[in-house]
């Protein structure tokens, strides 16, 4: 990517000659892929709900599919954000909703039940990936009850706080005396 941005860089500014290791872990890449997948699926569901319901033999549920599309897009954006973990958990929850909706269409009289079974299989697989990514991208902040170092001796005033306060008072008194 930096090869492109080097083109707009001012002549003489430093340019990368050898890249160092990235902070990105495989789970971050997976979260990113799932985020884009979510947005793609959401766009299809939102703009072509009829194609989706026809494929699944669930005609008449277009509004629900469109709502699911909005949910997918929002979860996708969240998964691409700094708070990707929240986005991934939202996707895990969404997978449950998807599965429930698909199961409701898995009736004996549905001529497309084979497609539903396939879709359920896919949702199951994606749900496993979502869950894995959500587990692996948990924020690495220390827990609330973790032991923390305290800094009670770092006043920053080599002569002590009282000396700083006294000096400030003297300056204020001096200034008041002048006015």
């Amino acid at each position, binding site marked *: 990517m930096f090869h492109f941005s080097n083109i707009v860089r001012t002549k003489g500014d430093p340019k*990368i000659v050898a*890249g160092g290791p990235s902070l990105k872990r495989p789970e971050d890449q997976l979260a990113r892929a799932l985020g884009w997948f979510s947005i793609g699926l959401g766009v299809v569901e939102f703009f072509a709900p009829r194609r989706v319901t026809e494929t699944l033999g669930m005609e008449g549920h277009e509004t629900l599919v469109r709502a699911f599309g909005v949910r997918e897009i929002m979860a996708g954006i969240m998964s691409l954000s700094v708070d990707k973990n929240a986005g991934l958990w939202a996707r895990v929850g969404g997978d449950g909703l998807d599965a429930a909706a698909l199961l409701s269409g898995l009736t004996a009289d549905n001529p497309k039940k084979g497609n539903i079974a396939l879709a359920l299989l896919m949702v199951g697989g994606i749900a496993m990936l979502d869950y894995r990514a959500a587990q692996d991208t948990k924020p690495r902040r220390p827990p609330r009850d973790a032991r923390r170092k*305290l800094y009670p001796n770092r*006043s*920053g005033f080599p002569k002590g706080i009282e000396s700083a306060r006294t000096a400030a008072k003297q300056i204020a008194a001096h200034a008041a005396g002048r006015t």
Partner: protein
Amino acid sequence: MKALVWHGKEDIRCDTVTDPEIQDPRDAIIKVTSCAICGSDLHLFHNYIPGMLPGDIMGHETMGEVVEVGSGVDGKLKKGDRIVVPFTIICGECDQCKRGNFSVCETTNRKRHLAEKVFGHSCAGLFGYTHLTGGYPGGQAEYLRVPFADATHIKVPAGIPDEQLLFLSDIFPTGWQAAVQCDIEPTDTVAIWGCGPVGQMAIRSAILLGANQVIAIDCLPERLSMAEAGGATTINFESESVLERLKELTDGRGPEKCIDCVGMESHVMASLPDTLLDRAKQMMMVESDRPHVLREMIYVCRPGGIISVPGVYSGFSDMLPMGAFMNKGLTMRTGQTHVNRWTDDLLRRIEEGEIDPSFVITHTVPLSQGPEMYQVFRDKRDSCVKVVLRP
């Protein structure tokens, strides 16, 4: 040379890059001896501020030794001089520089057309801080080109360690300016939101400027303990109500002066619904900032009081209580820091032992460990408050 390079959201790497070159007669090159990670670098780490490009070198808190000077530096710097580099690049000649408004220097932003589009007017060029402010390579590197070096420097004497001087580049004058902007009077209570490095400097500055009472607000025990050590009364907003405690500590009047050292990434808590809404909107890219602290300050500040905002905001903030702000007759002062306006005074205070800004350093590591330290600093791991990097 080695440098910390931005590759994308949450992706900073220690890369090998070409050495900087003199591009203009007013340039100088310094060999960096110390640099630091600033809280505002985290906004770039999170890609919340637009205008970063992969390959940009990070860092705007830097000091070092001059190793090369351009022909136009005009004797103001010479090889071997020890300088702290202010994060605002200044020409020293334009109308704003002459007024001491260095952070809005009219000359140094070499990509001023971008800033004019976004902000209406351009501001000064800044080191390592997006292409909106010139796209200048930053100082988290082994060498740094200092443009307009005849004006953009703070000469410092030998004999004082880097740790005491480095923060003249940004956080010390930033905390100082935040306090000065409050016009502190001896009877004032100054409330300071955020006990990160700038908050810590603002606390000490308010004490040095003679505030009657300084109240510091945060939720991290290590930062609150450091604030207390500096003379502040503390409020942990996770375990007590900020509004109630401030009322209690000011006999119901509210603090006369409020300082926002948090900025656009305020803490998100279920008990504060506006923070949840801000976070959701920020995630959906319909609001760029999370201005909970601004809202709280406007609400609690004593009528006629002053709100000072050194915390960084990048774009648009929703639901600010302008009714309260107007009816209470509050004054807001803000801006990037006019570093060179304050540094003579602050350097004197350091030399005289009035203050030692190195108190804030909790981690010192080699430059190569910089990328990991961005994560440690962001996640507040290992009680991290301030990271200094040694190239």
